[in-house]
């Protein structure tokens, strides 16, 4: 291959500034989307196991809508279709926001992810012995309190490994935000390539950003898993007896 590498390019302005901004955008987009997705996912997951038929139907509808439409289509829907269906005053306000594509991407990614999370959480909730719920109620906790303090914390501990892969997925899915105009790290590398014709260097930056971050996340999550393992119930590397 006859190609002269110019890694120094990445440290020069304006490219360096772009990269920093792109990496930061990816980070906070992923984090915000993740936090929102986790909150929504827990609520929807709980709805799907309640006794109320109406609540279960709401949960199921939500999950089936948001996990069965490709994420990229959902992003376009959120950007072009949804604002037109909302009240006039709201779309005026919305369109005047500074960073419409950014907020759109955040909403789209988190709704999509929350549907997937809700399914994981639902299966974890169903794995918890029903006696736990009765025990909580029998001590005078309300249903909401039993979920809040007993069932959900228990369920989350069971599914930490699954949450890890979901977070990695969210993180990498943020790359799709470039299709609706968010300048995150992937969009930044395309821009650098367009300006400098240095595609290899540019895409290396994006790839390294994703790999380095995901490895850090994996390390953090395995620490979290050890920290919150339930003593005597689930041990690392040991089957449950």
């Amino acid at each position, binding site marked *: 291959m006859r190609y002269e590498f110019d890694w120094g390019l990445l440290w020069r302005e304006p490219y360096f500034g772009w990269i920093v901004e792109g990496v930061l955008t990816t980070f906070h987009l992923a984090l915000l989307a993740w936090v929102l997705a986790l909150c929504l996912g827990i609520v929807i997951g709980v709805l799907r196991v309640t006794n109320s038929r109406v609540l279960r139907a709401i949960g199921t509808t939500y999950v089936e809508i948001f996990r069965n439409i490709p994420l990229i289509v959902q992003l376009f829907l959120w950007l072009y279709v949804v604002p037109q269906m909302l009240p006039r005053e709201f779309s005026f306000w919305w369109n005047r926001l500074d960073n419409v594509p950014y907020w759109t991407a955040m909403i789209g990614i988190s709704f999509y992810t929350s549907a997937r999370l809700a399914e994981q959480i639902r299966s974890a909730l169903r794995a918890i*012995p029903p*006696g*736990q719920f*009765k*025990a*909580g*109620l*029998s*001590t*005078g*906790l*309300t249903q909401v*309190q039993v979920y809040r*303090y*007993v069932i959900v*914390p*228990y369920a989350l*501990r069971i599914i930490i490994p699954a949450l890890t892969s979901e977070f990695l997925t969210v993180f990498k899915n943020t790359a799709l935000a470039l299709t609706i105009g968010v300048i995150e790290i992937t969009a930044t590398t395309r821009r650098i390539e367009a300006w400098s014709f240095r595609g290899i260097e540019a895409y290396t930056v994006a790839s390294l950003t994703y790999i380095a971050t995901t490895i850090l996340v994996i390390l953090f999550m395995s620490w979290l898993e050890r920290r*919150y393992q*339930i*003593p*005597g*119930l689930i041990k690392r590397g040991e089957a449950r007896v």
Partner: protein
Amino acid sequence: MSQPIIRVENVGLRFDSFVALDDVSLAVNAGQCIVICGPSGSGKSTLLRCINGLERFQKGDVWVDGVSVRGCQDLPKLRRGVGMVFQHFELYPHMTVLENITLAPIKAKGLSRKQAEDLAFHYLDRVGIVDQAQKHPGRLSGGQQQRAAIARALALEPKAMLFDEPTSALDPEMIAEVLYVMRDLAQGGMTMLVVTHEMGFAREVADEVIFMDRGRIVEHAPVDEFFSTPRAERTREFLNKILLKL
């Protein structure tokens, strides 16, 4: 005579076509210990769950300290007044023993953490496992877990305690330590309704014994009478089976 702590009147409950409880009535007075026995599926556990509103019944009503369970607007408050102990302990495995005990006093009753912990240590001491307070349930023996569960129920300072086969999931050695705690409670004047097959416990501690079969109370008698001169044929048959273990 003052009114009973727990009064069950003509309670009937069916799951589809299966009759779980059929016209069940009983009363537990303050300080009384009543043992319920009977074959599995006879409705003993279901009856206990009706008393603290964990199970809805179709007929009759239950009064706990004068409050009707059927018409109860504040079930959590009613349930706080009735401690419940389960066959499989049902401690929360992700919390320490101390957190297990203090959760409801803090969140449901509104005590401060300090007050709740003082209470917890008091009752842990009473059931003899103060030294296990900071451990998770998974690190305790079955007998210790059940004693922790008893302490959890006691920490709400209930007017009565319901025990649902508290020793059925335990090794023989550990049964004794749990029964000891229960006897201590009964002698301390706690009002108790105990579902168990430990006839030794019934004979020694109970004031009255109830025998249930197919959702009905077949026999309800003072403890001496129950063992010496059971009236119903079905009771004799049951007692012969479980007392003469050959």
